């Protein structure tokens, strides 16, 4: 395994650190690329209503780590004929205020290993960078298989964000924290993505385990369904990723304005909490 290259923090990390320095908590909404013809409008809605970074899911036919909502969102995008190159072009398309890549909020792509491998690790990472993407998450490439992707993402200047699960053993947490850039993604529970009523009490243990090894921001995702839950887990973490709760609404017909209101409600709840007592 190569040793980490020390370099200046990327756009994702900078954005999350700015929020932390200001005493706040980060909000990273997720949008499935291609879910509707006007899907980039959802990304802009997130950017304009308090997102610190935005995760864009590039659809895959067999999303092993996703629950029913994101499965349906990916399926809907693919049924519309979504193609990876077209989606990236839509992200990077120029035009005043039209392209999500031009909003100034850093973008992170989430997709599965096969999509990356099929396009070639290097070519894929370069295509993301060319589209204005700052970070990459590939949840089914674990530490043991990460090396080619790590090299390709570094060469392209992408922040490769690695995940830690509640079951991850300390020696791996340490290595993941060392190799991750942007932030460390703490998975809230042993399960798949999805909307849940309660956030697992393992969150604090997972987040604290990561913090022993890194000063990178630690964000929690999987099952963050309400502003109240976002506030709850942010007592331990630097912020949250919210995915299924948003895509559930979009699948049900929510407009970009509707989504903006939901994202705002998360932002307001996070901003309205006094974090000085936390941690």
């Amino acid at each position, binding site marked *: *395994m190569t040793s980490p290259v020390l370099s200046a923090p990327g756009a994702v990390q900078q954005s999350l650190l700015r929020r932390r320095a200001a005493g706040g908590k980060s909000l990273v909404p997720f949008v499935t690329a291609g879910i509707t013809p006007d899907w980039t409008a959802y990304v802009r809605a997130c950017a304009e209503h308090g997102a610190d970074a935005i995760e864009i899911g590039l659809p*895959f*036919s*067999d*999303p*092993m*780590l996703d*629950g*029913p909502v994101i*499965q*349906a969102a990916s*399926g809907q995008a*693919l049924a519309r004929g979504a*193609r*990876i*190159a077209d989606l990236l072009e839509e992200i990077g398309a120029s035009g005043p205020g039209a392209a999500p890549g031009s909003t100034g909020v850093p973008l992170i792509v989430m997709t*599965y*290993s*096969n*999509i*990356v*491998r*099929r*396009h070639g690790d290097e070519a894929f990472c370069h295509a993301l960078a060319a589209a204005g993407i700052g970070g990459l998450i590939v*949840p*089914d*490439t*674990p*530490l*043991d*298989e990460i090396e080619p992707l790590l090299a390709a993402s570094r060469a392209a200047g992408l922040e490769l964000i*690695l*995940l*830690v*699960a*509640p*079951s*991850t*053993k300390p*020696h*791996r947490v340490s*290595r*993941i924290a060392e190799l991750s850039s942007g932030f460390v993604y703490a*998975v809230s529970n*042993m*399960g*798949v993505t999805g909307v849940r009523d309660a956030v697992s009490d393992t969150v604090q243990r997972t987040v604290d385990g990561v913090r022993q090894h890194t000063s990178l921001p630690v964000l929690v995702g999987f099952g963050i369904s309400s502003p109240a839950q976002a506030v709850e887990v942010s007592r331990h973490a630097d912020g949250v990723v919210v995915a299924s709760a948003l895509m559930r609404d979009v699948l049900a017909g929510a407009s970009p304005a509707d989504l903006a209101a939901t994202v705002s409600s998360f932002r307001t709840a996070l901003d309205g909490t006094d974090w000085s007592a936390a941690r």
Partner: protein
Amino acid sequence: MNSSSGPSPAVPAPIEQPGTSTLLTADRSVMTDPGALGRFGGFGGRYVPEALIPACEELEAAYREARADPSFQSELTQTLQVYAGRPTPVTPAARLSQELGINLLLKREDLAHTGSHKINNVIGQALLARRMGKQRLLAETGAGQHGVATATAGALLGLDVTVYMGEVDTQRQQLNVFRMELLGATVVPVTSGSRTLKDACSEALRQWVSQVDEAYYCLGSVMGPHPYPWMVREFQSVIGSEARGQCAGLLRRGVPDVVVACVGGGSNAAGTFAGFVDTSARMVGVEAAGGAAMTDGSPGILHGFYSQVLQDDDGQVREAHSISAGLDYPGVGPEHASLGSSGRVEYTTATDEQVLEAVVLLARSEGILAALESAHALAWIIQAARSGDLAAGSTVLMTLSGRGDKDASQLMGLLA
């Protein structure tokens, strides 16, 4: 990379080496232990979420310990003998041999309990699950054969069984759903994606993530994250090991000229080839023309492993379609990808039409109703004998992986 598992302990190879009459080739590096990272050539690996890594590591450690433990091996052998009907015979197909001008031997996995080779793997994994203290088996199934075998092993050992099956398949294979339920298993229809085997695999992996402490994922073929492709091949290598010894007693040269098996995920083929990989035998894997990952696929990552995958140029996985539900999987075990790329095994295809002809020919000339899956191997043999690809007088061993009773109603419609 750190891992809890070191190099493999020095244990006897699971494949017995029979008498001196066999022709050995120099290369013994193939079909061995794939190491801590589970690599077969460049294929295999462990492409799963971090959440599943400890479970894969725990499984690998438990399997390495069990395979080195004589008491585990002896319980496995004993159970296969007194419960599953092993060893299965090798039957000389006399009348069909005469018609084709070759010497055809059939390794009769159709005579194993539950009617196919699937039981070999499932008994091994269920014994391992019990050894690991797991209370529940999770399994995916396509046509239902692996689900039935898992339900059977669960009943035998007193373990709960939950089988994930694509909703489309539960409708096509209602009889097997009933069989699983009769055996005490819970069958969960999977409604995502194409609602077939590949979606059942994804769902079983998702469920494993959320029940990993108490559940054991009993995977049905030589696929999935390490150690499954290796472990399942070893449990299935009883086919090749027995056949090697049986051929030694039946054939003047000791080994057949050609060894043939059908390939979906590739478990019966891997188990068969493991017995002959170090001989001079030509080895042929036969895929369904409508689901041929080796022939039509390209390198990709699906269900936790890197292998040949049917996919479009954007990386989206395609569905496989053939007459036999058991071969309708868009991937293939990583060791097959390696054996194909090294050239040690030839991979080819048979069409639905050729398969139907093979089923009828075998039934009428030998009194054996083969599963549609297994008939793919015979379909290639028939074409190759007719074309001269198989020289007259060649000795051919074919693994007849399962019986065709399950296909009777489908055949009624197809042959009407």
